[in-house]
């Protein structure tokens, strides 16, 4: 599903040059659940951004779901992104739309036929246990509910891969557990998951394969 080969990423030039990633090589097979762990500034977010082509590596190869990501033309980037569900620390819900509309909006903009939008949105809401809050606006949701809505939006388009960047970062322990349960459910339905977190305890709690990063380098690949 994911293959990185000697990937490096630098920002700036001269004295302002900053190496965000250096010589990263790993692979994730289809159906795996992998945790990407490391402190803030370790390069986790930059690495995720390379996977959905929000950034281009300075060196090395990146392959995701069969796409040679750095070589993708602008016109083909949407195809890659349709195969990936992305969840962020802040849920990034659209404030002026209800939970249902947030999901339906995403389905419509990627060209889902109108008659399929409602059933698919409700299936996704059911999967994250949020059917009852479909008509609520983001401001009316708790942080945990907002993150579950964000997960529902990510999985509504049936992605092959789910990238979760600190999905529990803003949540208390109880809400974080709820979100992790939902992500486990999504994984068990066949979606490959790459979850980035700075919380070492959370990585241990999940008992999954864990990639540990420090200062832009991959230190360990365990589990």
């Amino acid at each position: 599903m994911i293959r990185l080969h000697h990937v490096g990423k630098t920002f700036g030039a001269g004295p302002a040059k900053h190496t965000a990633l250096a010589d990263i090589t790993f692979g994730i097979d289809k159906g795996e659940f992998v945790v990407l762990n490391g402190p803030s500034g370790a390069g986790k977010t930059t690495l995720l951004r390379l996977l959905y082509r929000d950034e281009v590596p300075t060196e090395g190869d990146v392959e995701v779901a069969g796409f040679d990501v750095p070589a993708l033309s602008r016109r083909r980037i949407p195809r890659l992104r349709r195969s990936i569900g992305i969840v962020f620390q802040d849920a990034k819900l659209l404030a002026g739309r209800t939970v249902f509309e947030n999901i339906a909006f995403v389905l419509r903009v990627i060209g889902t036929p109108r008659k399929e939008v409602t059933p698919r949105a409700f299936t996704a809401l059911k999967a994250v246990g949020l059917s009852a809050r479909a008509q609520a606006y983001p401001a009316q949701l708790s942080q945990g509910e907002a993150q579950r809505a964000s997960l529902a939006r990510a999985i509504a388009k049936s992605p092959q891969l789910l990238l979760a960047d600190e999905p529990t970062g803003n949540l208390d322990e109880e809400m974080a557990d709820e979100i992790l349960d939902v992500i486990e459910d999504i994984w068990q339905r066949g979606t490959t998951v790459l979850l980035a977190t700075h919380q070492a305890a959370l990585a241990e709690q999940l008992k999954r394969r864990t990639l540990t990063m420090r200062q832009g380098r991959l230190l360990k690949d365990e589990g």
Partner: protein
Amino acid sequence: MLGFLAGEAARDLRRAGRVGLSAILLITLSLAALGCFWLLSLNLGRAVEQWRERVRVVAYLREEPRGAGVDDLLARVQALDGVQRVRFVSRAEALSSLKRSLGAQASVVDQLPRNPLPASLEVTPTPEAATPDGTRELVQRLSAMSEVDEVQGGAEWVESLAQWQRLFQLTGLGVGAVLALAAILTVTTATTLVLHARRDEMEIMRLVGATEAVIRLPLLLQGMTQGLLGAALALAALVAAHAVFAPRLEPLLTLTLGLARSVFLSPAQMALLLAGGAMLGAFGGLLAKGRAYS
């Protein structure tokens, strides 16, 4: 998908608020001004055409030809370049025509010892020759004929009417262009405001894999809708103004230009005005910054 994008465009239009409304009003103003000058030019153009058809050159003859001489003369004049029709007016016909035009004072003519009027040829130039240069050349050709004593007539005043028509056309285009430019800039501002309001939406669209066309099409549709609404309002204003003012102005038109009634834009011209509005709006929408994958 198109229905969804149109819905998003309508949502964007509501978001644009007062700036969006200003853009619509500016488009209305620019197209109404353009339409006004278009109507004036259209009616003046009709007058010019009508008067071109009425241009006559009269060649007065030294002596009245008789019998076959008339047919021979008519045939020779008809063969000249720039002649559409030619009619022989005998001295007797000229006199009775004068009597008719004098009306109640016609008896004055009877006091004359003899008919003082010469026979003449009334020449109608072809539409191409009904210009100042064309009629001047025709006058020269007729003057060169030995039977002809004097030639009168020309198309100078028709040409000055045509010059007025061109002036209206140019003024209309100038005023319309300035206002259209202002309208485009306002649509661009309205669309840019919407782009700012849509930043979050565009980011989500980009992340989930929407194509650039899907991201930008609502902006284009928003601009086109503004343009179309502005054009429809301008057209409605023109229809109303024509309905109110045309009946009051028609007597003046008849007196000065000889037009029995004024005309309004044809359905094709109205469609062109609406399409022009939509294009103005679309152009403004396209100018707004915000490439999806910049």
